[in-house]
Structures are given as structure tokens and as C-alpha cells.
């Protein structure tokens, strides 16, 4: 019914003939342009507010920003900002102190390198060889090896992780715990239990609270003296001990806040995926005598795999930008122990080191893109195979 209406409209307008032909031509033109009309507004808005800032930031990251009399001055300084972060005065802040070593750490490092070499050799011996592929693989293997070296040296006893490593820890620990919890809760909530709607709404609550508010809330909760868990700390003999002053305690507090806030996101998407599982398949498997574990492994997991990969990718992109929690909860401290890359860039910005801030942002962009692309390239083909 609805689709016939335009021709009726057209017929009515057709009463005045000169106007009608012009209208027809106009609408025909609009029809030709439809594709452009749909996509251009969005593209223009994003262009306007992204490409321009991107270029300006790139320029800023390559220059020195200084206040002078009556304004400011931006002086081109090449790669000085990046150099400062990687080998210069800011190295301890950004990369940390890669001075620790432990037998276990070196074992892990050697294992990673061997794995990379094996996969590289396997690729070189395969049929589908191309120059771009070889270069890409060598470069990305080198980056992964460097990352492994950095992790091993800074996390072993005697080393100290910088904001880059801390961010990676936040992202990976956070993602794993959130996904695990979200999946477990979603599995439980799909059962036909009375009152599951209550649980669903309650589980969504943390996502609705502003991250700044959550950060302050966790500051209240983690207070060992006036917080609600004070009796527990007292019993453990930690009465006046502020665990937020201990590097790993502080990091744990930040991660707890992040997990509390973002597990609901995983939960709700996985719940939706589980509820759309085909009932017939499960029924058939039950009739054939499959147990619950087999059903989970052979029916549930393949069905939620595609959702999971997208879900993890989206969460990963957002998790790399964590800033409110460490900023409010610990102010990046003790020292720089809980600083994420974004917070590091924010602190540099506050100190009016705009060049350094922009350089950090660019490094973060590079890290996110690299991890995201590797993730997509590693996981997607495997999901497609199943």
C-alpha cells in the first residue's frame, strides 16, 4: 500500500503541467544522487572533525610548543618528541625501566621468539608468497618480539613498567576477565529462571554511570579506613594501610573499576547471542545423548564465536583509551605506576607539553591499530574456518 503513494502524489501534481515536468526532472535527478545524499553528510562531519585534527596533531607531535610574549610559538623539531619518549628523558615514564630479569621471564621471551620464527618459516615455505607479505610479517614479528622483550624486562623483579606496558595490562586483563564473567553470567541468565528480567536490568546498571562517578565511587570503596570494607581490612591487619599506595594494589583497583563497569556490555551482547541459538539443534543433540559440556563445546561456542570476535574488538578499541579511572582513583600514582597512555598524554597536555602529548597519542594510535589489525588477521580466518 505504502509504496503506491508516490505515484498518486505525482498524479496530483501532474495537474499543472509545466510544474509537473520540472518536478519529474528534479525527482529523477534526486534519485540519481540518492547514493551520495545518503553517505555524504556523515562522511563530511567525520572528515571535518577528524582529518583536520589528525593532521594538526601530527604536526604538533613533530614540533615544540612554547609560550612567548603575547601568544605562543610552534617550532618544527623533527622527531625530537618521539626520541624523548623512546630513548630520552621520558623513557622511564613511557617504556618503564627494562632492567629486571628472571629465568621464567627469559624462558617466556625465548618461547615467543621461537614461535614467531616458526610461523615465519612456515609462511616462507608455503606457496602463497609475496614480497609485501614477507615484509609485513617480518616487521610485525619484530614488533611483537620487542613487545615481549619489554614486557619481560619491565615485569620481572627489578624492572618497572611504564605507561605503555600498564595500558597493555589493563586492556588484556580487563578484556579476559570481562569476557569470562560476561559469558558465565549470560549462560546462567539464559536458563528459564523466574525473575531473570530483574537480573538483566540490574546487570546493565554499571554501564549507565558516568566513568568519573565510578572512579570516585571506587575511591570510596577502596578506602581502607572509612570505606565499607574497613572491618575486613582491620581483620587482615591492613587497617591503616592504603593498598592504593602499592603499585600492584593500585593497578588492581583500577582494573576492578573497569571490570565492574564493562562486564555488563559483554553480558548483554553475549546474552542476546545465546538466546538466538537454535533450539532444534540442542534438542537433537540431547536426544542423541550428548552431555552439557559437549553441547556447549560443539553447539554454543561456534554459534557465539563471530559475535565474540566483534565484541572483543570493539571493547579493545575503547579499553585502550582508559583515562578517567586511573586519573581520579589514583591520580596515576603511586609515582606513575597506574598511568595509562591516555592519562600520560593528558598529563603532558596539562604540563603544556603539547608536542609530547600529541606524540604519545600517535604512538597510542599506532599500538591500537597494530593490535587491532593483528587480532583481526589472526582470529577472523580461524573463525571463518569453523
Amino acid at each position, binding site marked *: 500500500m*505504502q*509504496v*503506491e503513494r508516490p505515484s498518486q502524489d505525482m498524479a496530483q501534481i501532474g495537474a499543472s503541467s509545466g510544474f509537473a515536468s520540472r518536478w519529474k526532472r528534479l525527482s529523477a535527478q*534526486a534519485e540519481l544522487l540518492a*547514493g551520495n*545524499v*545518503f*553517505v555524504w*553528510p*556523515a*562522511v563530511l562531519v567525520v572528515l571535518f572533525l*577528524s*582529518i*583536520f*585534527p*589528525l*593532521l594538526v596533531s601530527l*604536526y604538533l607531535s613533530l614540533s615544540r610548543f612554547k609560550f612567548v610574549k603575547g601568544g605562543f610559538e610552534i617550532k618544527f623539531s623533527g622527531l625530537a618528541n618521539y626520541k624523548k619518549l623512546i630513548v630520552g628523558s621520558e623513557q622511564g615514564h613511557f617504556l618503564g625501566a627494562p632492567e629486571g630479569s628472571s629465568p621464567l621471564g627469559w624462558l617466556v621471551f625465548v618461547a615467543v621468539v621461537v614461535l614467531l620464527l616458526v610461523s615465519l618459516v612456515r609462511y616462507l615455505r608455503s606457496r602463497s608468497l609475496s614480497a609485501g607479505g614477507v615484509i609485513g610479517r617480518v616487521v610485525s614479528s619484530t614488533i611483537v618480539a620487542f613487545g615481549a622483550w619489554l614486557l619481560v624486562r619491565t615485569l620481572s623483579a627489578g624492572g618497572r613498567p611504564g605507561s605503555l606496558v600498564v595500558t597493555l595490562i589493563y586492556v588484556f586483563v580487563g578484556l579476559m576477565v570481562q569476557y569470562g564473567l560476561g559469558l*558465565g*553470567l549470560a549462560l*546462567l*541468565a539464559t*536458563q*528459564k*529462571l523466574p525473575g531473570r528480567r530483574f537480573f538483566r*536490568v*540490574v*546487570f*546493565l546498571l554499571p554501564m*549507565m*554511570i*558516568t566513568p*568519573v*562517578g565510578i572512579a*570516585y*565511587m571506587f*575511591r570510596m*570503596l577502596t578506602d581502607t579506613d*572509612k570505606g*565499607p570494607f574497613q572491618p575486613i581490612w582491620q581483620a587482615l591487619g591492613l587497617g591503616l594501610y592504603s593498598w592504593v599506595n602499592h603499585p600492584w594494589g593500585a593497578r588492581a583497583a583500577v582494573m576492578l573499576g573497569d571490570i*565492574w563497569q564493562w562486564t555488563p556490555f559483554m553480558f*548483554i*551482547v553475549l546474552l*542476546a547471542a545465546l538466546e538466538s541459538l537454535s533450539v532444534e539443534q*540442542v534438542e537433537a543433540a*540431547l536426544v542423541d545423548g550428548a552431555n552439557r559440556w559437549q553441547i556447549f563445546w560443539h553447539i554454543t561456542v561456534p554459534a557465539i564465536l*563471530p559475535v565474540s570476535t566483534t565484541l572483543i574488538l570493539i571493547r579493545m578499541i575503547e579499553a*585502550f*583509551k582508559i*583515562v*578517567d579511572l586511573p586519573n*581520579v582513583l589514583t591520580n596515576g600514582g603511586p609515582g606513575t605506576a597506574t598511568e595509562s*597512555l*591516555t592519562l600520560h*598524554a593528558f598529563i603532558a597536555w596539562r604540563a603544556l607539553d603539547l608536542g609530547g*602529548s*600529541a606524540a604519545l*597519542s600517535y604512538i*597510542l594510535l599506532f599500538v591500537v*591499530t597494530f593490535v587491532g589489525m593483528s587480532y583481526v588477521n589472526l582470529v577472523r580466518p580461524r573463525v571463518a574456518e569453523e
Partner: protein
Amino acid sequence: MIKRLFRRRSLFGSSPVGMAISYLALGLWALVVLFPIYWLFVTSFKLPVDVNTGPYYVPFVDFQPSLHAWHYILVGDLSNDTIRPYVNTVIVALTSSVLSLMLGTAAAYGLTRFDYRPRLGAILTFIGCLVLVVFAVVLGVPWQIAVLVGVALFVLLLQTIGKRFKRSLGNSDIAFWLISQRMLPPVAVVIPIYVLFQQFHLLDTRAALIITYLATNLPIVVWLMRDYFQTIPIEVEECAAIDGASHYRVFWSIVLPLALPGLVATFLFVLVFAWNEYLLALFLSGADAQTLPLTVAAQNATRGPQWWYMSVLILIMIIPVVAIAIALERYIARGLLVGAVKG
């Protein structure tokens, strides 16, 4: 007897013991979620002395509740500083979400139903001209002149060099470019945006926040809605097109109603993002356009965080969002799913 306890009642039901364990686990997490919120609620009724002398859990038993914080925030000294940010937040979040939903949905529809072939040569020319303009402005050329020259140069180069390159990009490239805009940390974009809005005299206005949130939320809308549209069978639209309906009419009266659950879920998502955003608002707004997250953070005064005021603010901030979420709960799961499955 014991065996019966463990036996499933039907094919899908669980045994009573299994059910008890499920309830225990769900209840435990509900406790984890609700306790911090309960603590906020209790704290909002405490006097500063009750907070500072140690943990008190139950009102009327442990301590005498007081409405002083609620009074201070809602009708007392701070009421003006609460109402204005509240109005700002509502206007900014709603407007930017609706706008990004409109533009993003249209773009997502375009990306699933039309073939776009932006030529690589044209894109490279555009970026090259933009770099030139930025450098010229940085070096001191007035921006109006730089932009004019840049546009002229772009058109000129496009007609000559740009046409030589035959390679072009596709729809998925456009979509990936859009989502890649989310990867940039806000700190990276905020300095140029700050300067930009300063040039247009838009700093500390709601318009600045609306435009910024619109741009940051558009990629999410495009991605979620694009996957949603891919699940809608194209045959219906083809029939309508044969009957003479224009693309716009097909989009408006056939596709949009079909995609309603996805629209609702996406809307809620973007709304929550815009409602709670802190860092960009911190840079772009001063006293006039202040939003609620800033008001919350501002309660961390020189005398230390004012927990009681903060609790009230956080609570009044989540009430509207939770109300909307409960009203739309049925749609959220369904809408999100289809968005995620095909990603």
C-alpha cells in the same frame, strides 16, 4: 530421593540443585553490582561527620540520615549549578544522539545498498591539499585565504592529476575508515578541535559539544546500523522500487520501520556515551555549557572530595538513563545482537 533432586524436570529445565547454584551465582553478581550503588545511596544521606568517622551501613540503625546533601544540590546553594548542567546534559546528549542516529543511519543504509568507488587519486589529492593548507595556516597565512587557495588547488589537481589514478576504494574501506576514527584517543583530537571552535567563537557553547559528540558517535552508529541493514532482505525493497518508490521513500517507509529494534538499541548506546562523556567536555566547556560529569568531578574541592554531594549528583544522573533503559530493555538485546553477529 536424592536422585530426584538432581534430575532435570524437562529437556531444558535444570535440576533444583542446579537452579539453586545458578541463583547463587546470579545473586552474587547482583550483589557486586548493587552494593556500590547502595553505598552511594546511603552516602547521599550522611552528614560529613558520618562519612569521616568510619563506615556506617544502615540508615536509622548506624546513623541518623539527613537530607542536607539533597537539599544543597537540589534547592540550596548549588541548585543553580545543578540545574544548568542538567539542562545542558539533556540537550547536548539528546540532540547529538538524534543527529548522529539520523546521519549515521542514512550513511549505513548507503553503505549497504549502493556501491561507492572513491578514487584513490582524488583522496590523495585531497589529503595533500589539506596538508598544504594546515602548513600555510601554521606559518601565518590567514585561514580564509589558505582555505580558498586550497580548494582551488584541489579542484585543479583533481581535474588533471587525480584522474590518472584508476584505483579506487570500496564500501568496506569507507566503513573501516569511519571506525578507525574511534581509535584515536580524545586527547589527540581535542587540541585542534579546541583551536577550531575558538576560531568560530563556539567555545563553551552547547553547539560545540553537540558537534563533537556527533562526530565521535557517528562511527558507532554507522557500524551497528550497517550490520543491521545487511540482515534485512533486499527483495522487499526491490519490489517497492519496481512499483515506483524512490530510494528515499523505500528508506523512510520500509527500511526504517523494519530496523526499529536496531535503531532503539543504537540510540540508547550513543545516548549513554554522550550523557557520560567527561574528557572532551572538560576541554570544550567552561561555566556556560558545563555538563553533569564535570559537576560530579567538581565536587572534589580543596577540602577533599565531598562524597555526599557527589553521591547525590551521580544518583540523579543515572535515574533518567535507567528509566529509558528499562523502558527499552526488550529492544536492547535484540537490536545489539543483529548488529554484532554480522560484524
